[in-house]
């Protein structure tokens, strides 16, 4: 009995220590992100507390057409195009990988996920050489294509995972009831795997929207993306307009996360909590 009670005391101490450690780590993860938000409303031009006063001047600076808004539109345009391409190609590929086990399937999967393993700088350099040859350097097309290659693996992985939970009997049932293959896909398959596709698309979007290194190599000033602009700014001098833009991006990301969570709940409902 005595032995048992010391053991629980030990366990209690371990549990307290664990909680303290977890709390500290969460603080480490969240604190810097939250700490910069108030500073973006500073009326001074230094990034330190205490702030001299409240002002929206840095948001005004960030909402100027040049350079911030222009690079934001570039980023959105490139990310949306890359997402559409990556999602289309990735979903088709994931469907193909699910319905049949053709020879060389393992190699195909290895090639498709390799953009996740190969260091981004190697991709950037290779794409630079290639685009220089075919005249895609400093074009939107080039940047969109490179970002599509980086985002597509995420789509394939998420859609593959969703298709694993998808009952292929439903396709047979639908066609046995007389539905044409396209109608089956549109009315049965697609609605059921749509949340997975959407998750993959969001991954692809974020991948492109947050990408710096390829943009560093292949974008000319006309295609500078928001991360490219922020990177240059951070390298040059840390000024409050970057912090204001960061705050806007944090809000934007939080919004996307909420959408994702809603999608996840919808999937769970449709798939019956599988």
């Amino acid at each position, binding site marked *: 009995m005595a032995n048992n009670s010391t053991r629980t005391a030990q366990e209690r101490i371990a549990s307290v220590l664990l909680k303290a450690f977890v709390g500290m*780590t969460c603080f480490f993860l969240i604190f810097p992100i939250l700490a910069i938000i108030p500073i973006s409303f500073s009326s001074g031009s230094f990034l330190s507390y205490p702030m001299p006063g409240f002002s929206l001047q840095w948001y005004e600076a960030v909402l100027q057409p040049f350079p911030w808004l222009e690079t934001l539109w570039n980023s959105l345009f490139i990310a949306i195009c890359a997402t559409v391409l990556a999602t289309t190609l990735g979903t088709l590929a994931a469907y193909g990988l699910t319905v049949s086990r053709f020879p060389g399937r393992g190699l195909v999967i290895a090639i498709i996920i390799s953009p996740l393993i190969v*260091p981004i700088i190697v991709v950037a350099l290779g794409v630079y*050489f290639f685009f220089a040859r075919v005249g895609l350097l400093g074009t939107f097309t080039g940047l969109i294509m490179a970002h599509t290659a980086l985002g597509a693996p995420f789509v394939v992985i998420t859609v593959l995972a969703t298709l694993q939970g998808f009952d292929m009997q439903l396709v047979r049932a639908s066609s046995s009831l007389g539905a044409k*293959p396209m109608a089956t896909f549109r009315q049965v398959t697609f609605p059921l795997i749509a949340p997975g596709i959407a998750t993959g698309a969001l991954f692809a979007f974020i991948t492109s929207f947050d990408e710096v290194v390829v943009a560093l190599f292949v974008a000319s000033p006309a295609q500078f993306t928001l991360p490219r602009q*922020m990177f240059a700014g951070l390298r040059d001098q840390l000024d409050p307009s970057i912090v204001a833009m960061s705050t806007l991006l944090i809000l934007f990301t939080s919004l996307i996360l909420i959408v994702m969570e809603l999608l996840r709940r919808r999937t769970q409902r449709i798939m019956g909590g599988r």
Partner: protein
Amino acid sequence: MSITAEFESDSGRAPEVSLKSKLRRAERQRQLKGLGLVAPLLTFLLVIFVLPIVAILFFAVSSPEVGEALPRTAEAIKSWDGKDLPDEATYRALAEDLAEGYEAKTVAGAGTRLNYQASGFRSLIMRTARKADEMQAPFKAAMIDRDERWGEIQYWRELQRAARPLTPLYVLQVLDLKQDETGAIVSVPENRAIYLDYLTRSLWISASVTVLCLLIGYPIAYFAAHTTSNWGYLVLGAVLLPFWISVLVRTAAWMVVLQREGMLNDLLIGIGLIGEPLQLLFNRFAVYIAMIHVLLPFLVMPLYNNMRTIPQLHLKAAGSLGATPFWAFWTVYFPQSLPGLSAGALLVFILALGYYITPALVGGPGDQMLSFLVTQFALEIGNWGMAAAAAGLLLVATLVSYAVFRLCLGARGFM
């Protein structure tokens, strides 16, 4: 369109064929359909992704500059035995090539390329090329008269080596090796051995970040996976939120926190721990902090998913059999969490190895990794051979690490 294939095969149009062959045909059609659906992405990736990377490996050993700018010389010197100075015909070829190349403004590229091989070669080429069109036979004497280095055999040996279409120069250089005059591979002098450090530093930083992430991430994942309260979701949210926020935003945040007038210095001074603000930015400390912040979620997520499948009952069972809590954890729980641990460690290590943005922004000159070397050679210096060699080295290091993790630790990898 290819979706129709499966259903056509089901409807069975030819009743006379045996079931076996019908099945075989259906299977073949299914495979074709699968391939057809995968083909667009596969083709796209082969062209945009695989081909350029193969090209990098080629550029790391290719040496077209001298052969293109000085074609006759390259041809004439190919069969030279390297014992005595080349013959008059070779000197003549070089004089003509230089005269033409100077006119066409192509010699500068060859000069730069030769300079990688032996410093001073670029100025020698340019100096000779300026007067090459005035040279008369005998060209050997004329060239040596213009610059006596043309009478030194080592310059001709370097020229011969650089004129070959393939060169080991960049690969050797990135490994702090070189070919001496006889062509043997030797180490470069210690004060010029600067590139291999980038590889060892990349490996060291990646290993340190991986170990630190393991130490920090394991308790986090354990708590999130096994707590009965709703705190688990909150902790998971705290890990995932940074994951989704732009790397640049997070790096900017750390720069604000760690700068000289930043919050951490203010706090440390406020509680009287230090009198003067510390230099917390642009050093290894800042690199570790910012990289752990970015990479921790990649460790926690696979580990969390793994730990959720481990029944806590096992610990209780071990305890009832007399194991101390620590012994029960170590012998019963920990081995079961290894698959998630190794998958997470693989992700963190591989991602850390190719890191560029964070060290470039918050690190000092002594904290840069291989990626920095690639951008430096490509974007600042314009030495594409070295950029390709450094990128090739990084690629090989990544693939070897990936293989080691998968084979030795049985890590599951990305799928």
